[in-house]
């Protein structure tokens, strides 16, 4: 891999007006999806699908990825200023960010967090740039056996995504896998579960599934009441502050920016941590934020300051949650194994755009890969700069009325569902599956497991058939398989132990026992 690929991709991105224009358009959209409670990056991708319909792969992917990469940066503003974590990954910011605002340090908290997010995004990209040459031979050596086990490992991570609701998570994962079987069987060419319906012949796409199980339940949840301010369920909205508490000057913001350099060791370490967490399938943004926060607490000389407004408690999760975006690209692009539910949706969108994730990307599509990595870096920088200047005004988005938001999003969800396959019958499936998604949401069943099953199930099946055709059942006893099986057994054992140690608190069906993904649980202050 030559350095010319790296820099020609960057220059190509910067000198192409269309690409720069799309990135500039993606930034306010990403901030919007990040600021408005109930939307978020996953919904952002699926709702923007209609807009990239028919676009070339590179502009479409740059647009979606730029939007997705900065969603958490956008979510920082309402999380810190109003104590409303619009999405799960921002929840750690409340622990120290909101107390800082209460202490009259709103500007410093925002400055520290926003600049940490920007720096985290950049360090994530640098880490990926350093890792790529090492990963290249490793990726190219993969055979169907490794891909099969990699997909199974990804599916096993349902146990981590499901949290206390392991059985429910597995049911939802199996449901996703079953839905993924609709269409042509890769082995025999037989049509499975199509029931002679033309619209099912080429399978059930990820976008429709996500819209039905995410967008619709979220909108129904927002639309069922007359709330004017929507917050993540299960996350208490703190008491309203006096308006003067959220007023700040640019000097205070700059003071917060300087905090990143004051705590440079923490900033760099948590950014690197976030990048590597992002690469591990199943962990996702929340894990990155909380793990980096825990790291900041563990290395502090006075840990008792945390929870009362320590600026390190704002820096660490901000760098981690943004750095993981670049890390998450690697398994998604090179193995077709998404690092989290957000990347699973991104994977579906990339496939829809005509990009074929897999090891061959490192051979044939490296300029595209680098363009995407640079897009993350540039959008992070632009977004950080933008929010540092006008963040206070963007925070009004957190108070947008659900009654206005619901029907508009519903229209775009319907549009996305239709455009994903160009079949009107998909609209009926959307509404039908949405009911299942809604009941799941109300009872906090872990919906991300559906996406994992839907995306990885068919990959696992296809790889299994290929490996079986090459080696017969003997592939199960090969050293690679034995190592992978050991990894899976270890992961499952650890997760099961963690789950059942906490019984009966996680008794099925009890409200208030959400997955780590659907419902962030804040630590006690």
């Amino acid at each position, binding site marked *: 891999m030559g350095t010319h690929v790296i820099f020609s991709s960057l220059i190509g991105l910067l000198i192409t007006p269309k690409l720069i224009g799309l990135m500039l358009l993606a930034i306010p959209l990403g901030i919007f999806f990040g600021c408005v409670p109930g939307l978020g990056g996953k919904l952002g991708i699926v709702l923007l699908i*209609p807009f990239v*319909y*028919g676009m070339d792969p590179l502009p479409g992917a740059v647009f979606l990825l730029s939007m997705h990469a900065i969603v958490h940066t956008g979510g920082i503003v309402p999380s810190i200023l109003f104590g409303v974590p619009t999405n799960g990954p921002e929840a750690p910011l409340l622990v120290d960010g909101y107390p800082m605002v209460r202490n009259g340090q709103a500007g410093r908290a925002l400055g520290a967090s926003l600049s940490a997010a920007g720096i985290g995004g950049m360090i994530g990209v640098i880490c990926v740039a350093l890792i790529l040459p090492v990963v290249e031979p490793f990726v190219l050596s993969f055979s169907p056996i490794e891909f099969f086990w990699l997909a199974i490992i990804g599916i096993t991570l349902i146990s981590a995504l499901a949290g206390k609701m392991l*059985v*429910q998570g*597995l*049911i939802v994962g*199996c*449901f996703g*896998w*079953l839905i993924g*079987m609709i269409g042509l*069987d890769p*082995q*025999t060419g*037989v049509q*499975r*579960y199509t029931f002679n319906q033309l619209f099912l012949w080429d399978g059930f796409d990820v976008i429709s599934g996500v819209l039905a199980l995410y967008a*619709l339940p979220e*909108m*129904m949840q927002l*639309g*069922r*009441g007359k709330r004017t301010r929507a917050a993540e369920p299960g996350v208490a909205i703190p008491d309203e502050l006096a308006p003067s508490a959220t007023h700040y000057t640019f000097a205070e913001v700059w003071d917060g920016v300087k905090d990143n350099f004051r705590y440079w060791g923490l900033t760099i370490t948590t950014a690197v941590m976030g990048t590597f967490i992002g690469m591990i399938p199943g962990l996702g943004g929340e894990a990155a934020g909380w793990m980096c926060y825990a790291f900041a607490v563990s290395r502090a000389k006075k840990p008792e300051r945390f929870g009362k407004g320590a600026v390190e408690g704002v820096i660490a999760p901000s760098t981690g949650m943004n750095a993981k975006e670049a890390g998450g690209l690697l398994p998604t692009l090179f193995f077709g194994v998404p690092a989290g539910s957000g990347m699973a949706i991104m994977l579906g969108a990339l496939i829809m755009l005509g990009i074929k994730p897999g090891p061959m990307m490192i051979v044939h599509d490296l300029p595209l890969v680098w363009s995407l990595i640079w897009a993350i870096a540039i959008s992070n920088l632009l977004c950080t700069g933008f929010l540092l200047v006008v963040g206070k005004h963007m925070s009004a988005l957190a108070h947008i*009325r659900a*009654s*206005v938001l*619901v*029907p*508009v999003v*519903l*229209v775009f969800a*319907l*549009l996305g569902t*239709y*455009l994903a396959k*160009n079949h*009107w019958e998909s*609209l*009926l499936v*959307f*509404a039908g599956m*949405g*009911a*299942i998604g*809604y*009941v*799941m949401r*109300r*009872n906090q*069943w872990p919906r991300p497991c559906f996406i994992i099953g839907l995306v990885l*199930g068919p990959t696992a*099946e296809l790889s*299994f058939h290929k490996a079986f055709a090459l080696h017969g059942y003997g592939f199960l006893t090969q050293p690679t398989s034995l190592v992978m099986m050991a990894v899976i057994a270890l992961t499952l054992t650890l997760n099961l132990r963690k789950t059942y140690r906490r019984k009966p608190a996680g*008794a*099925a*069906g*009890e*409200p208030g026992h959400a997955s780590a993904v659907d419902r962030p649980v804040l630590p006690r202050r």
Partner: protein
Amino acid sequence: MNSKPLPGGRVRITSTAALSLTFLVIFVSAVVVAKLNYPAEAASMPLIIGGFGAALSLLQLITELRASRGAYEEQIDLKRDIPIYLWVWSFVIAVTAFGFVLAAPVMLFVYLKFRSRESWWLSLLLSLAVLGLLYGVFQVALGVPLFEGLATPRIKEWLMPGGDG
């Protein structure tokens, strides 16, 4: 179903039990369809996943039914949930019948005015904005072929017999 804690003692069909039952039916149906219709190679994975899912769903159903005998707070409130779900279906049916460009702005206006009780001007403004986006941006500028509905072509044909539709 209501949102208040239910008195204990009797087994009830709660929303989570209904959900587990739904999944059980789906998985069992998938297994039966695979076993009866597909050759062994194509049926192998549906049988494994469907069978595993069915077993887990049954286990979950039993757990939910047992849990329903104790104090249980129902998460689904039909009085609040059915109306919004009917709105969703009304959007879907309207779009299916009349297509995006016609139905979406109209349904948006109706929702904003009569469900959300927003002002006339905001309802109208947002509906016109969506109309402009769907027709102007998607249909004309981007050339995206938007679904025109099942009824719209027939209405056009009825209004303009022999026209080019």
